[in-house]
């Protein structure tokens, strides 16, 4: 479904990604794990088209999207939930969801999408008219996810959904991620919380300073002594 080949991205003189290749198949949850600065977010932003890449190729369902502008990529069915949630703080919950459905032309479909988000996250319905900045961290994460679902994406890129959340909320958010995946949406998940990420993912890639150092079935990686030592704190 999504294929990244030999992706290289430089920030000035710093090589953020060196020849990265990875793949996501239809229906999967694929995790990208690694320490801070390993290049996980850079991969997602390259896929979404908001970062200029230096070389390499990204294709989605067989179409080359390497040079496609971000709003076209959303239309093709890839939507990102950015790191730190990035809800539009001074807009209401309802307006945030509307923005998620910006690429949807049909107004009835947008309203149906908002209803869907409210069913998935009842808390959002209660706070529909509130400004997003008044929400708690967990609620903002729900809003960011609900907002991304508005465009009915085929593939969701989730960047650090557990960041800054209490453990109980993290569990809840991950349950929802699994639910979203079960309802047919493919997921690419970037996480520092490797333990949680590996517990729900089918496959995973381990990144270190801009390179893929390990990849494979998530369950196998979770048992790999190197991974356990470096990322699972054992």
């Amino acid at each position, binding site marked *: 479904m999504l294929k990244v080949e030999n992706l290289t991205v430089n920030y000035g003189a710093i090589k953020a990604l060196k020849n990265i290749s990875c793949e996501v198949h239809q229906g999967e949850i694929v995790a990208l794990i690694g320490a801070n600065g390993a290049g996980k977010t850079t991969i997602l932003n390259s896929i*979404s*088209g*908001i970062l200029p890449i230096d070389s390499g190729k990204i294709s989605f369902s067989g179409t080359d999207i390497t040079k496609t*502008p*971000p*709003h076209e990529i*959303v*239309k093709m069915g890839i*939507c*990102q939930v*950015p790191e*730190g949630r*990035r809800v*539009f*703080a*001074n*807009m209401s919950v309802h*307006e945030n969801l*509307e*923005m*998620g459905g*910006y*690429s949807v032309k049909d107004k009835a479909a947008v309203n149906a999408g908002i209803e869907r988000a409210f069913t998935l996250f009842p808390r959002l319905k209660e706070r529909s008219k509130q400004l997003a900045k008044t929400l708690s961290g967990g609620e903002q994460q729900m809003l960011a996810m609900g*907002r991304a679902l508005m*465009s009915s994406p085929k593939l969701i890129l989730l960047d650090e959904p557990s960041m800054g959340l209490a453990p109980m909320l993290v569990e809840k958010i991950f349950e929802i991620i699994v639910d979203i995946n079960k309802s047919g949406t493919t997921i690419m998940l970037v996480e520092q919380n490797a333990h949680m990420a590996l517990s729900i993912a089918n496959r995973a890639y381990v990144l270190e300073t801009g390179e893929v150092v390990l990849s494979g079935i998530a369950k196998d990686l979770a048992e790999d002594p190197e991974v356990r030592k470096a990322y699972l704190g054992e």
Partner: protein
Amino acid sequence: MLLQQLINGVALGSVYALIALGYTMVYGIITLINFAHGEIFMVGAFVGLLAVSKYNVNVFVAMAVAMVASMIIGVVIELIAYRPLRKSSRLSALISAIGVSIFLSSLALMVFGADAKAFPSTAFPVRQIKIGEAEISSLQLLIIGISALLMLGLEFIVKKTKIGKAMRATSEDYNTAALMGINVNRVISFTFALGSALAAAGGVLVGVLFNAVSFNMGLMAGLKAFAAAVLGGIGSIPGAMLGGLMLGITEVLGVAAGFSSYRDAIAFAILVLVLLVKPTGLLGRKIQKKV
């Protein structure tokens, strides 16, 4: 007496507000001080003048024509002078803006000459209306009325329409707006069109009010409106409206108090004061550094 000055101040301030909105909206989205904005105001005034004097249309039609013409000019300026520099340093775009500003005023000087042109006296019949002690001219009423109408229209667009909401989203978080499927380039063009239309309306109103349109009228008006935008909090739309009105009233009161030779200095004194004491302005948001 005070009421009279307030009326004069609100009329002048409405025009400052109209121009200030363009600065603030553009800054809100691409953090660029569009120094060519004052010249768009000037071009709008000339287009309005041409429409009235050559084609004998009334002021309202002239204003509509000026607004449309300026919209196009504003969008084209962004396209050729700012967009290619989007990824360069902010300073490059700022210098480009100053270049466009000089270009437009020189062009107007070449085409229309150096002397101020006047609207024909038939353009808008001026009558005085008494309100108690004070008098308000039909022209002042026109200015206040049109400005209020345009600002309500703007408020509606920004609050209720899809593209208006996209403007707010882009102004809050450019990258995330793009990630949501918003075509940010189109939003930016739309913002320039809106701001330019408002400036053109202001240009025609000022042209009729002072009965003078000249190639360099955009400089002072633009700088003062910029001061108004900073006073209100650059990036904030209600701030620009408030800042414009406050600046207009302060200026008129200052003149009435006998500081008429410092008329233009008042705006800049306020600008310096705001930057020293509260750089975010009256209604501006605190600028957060994104981590």
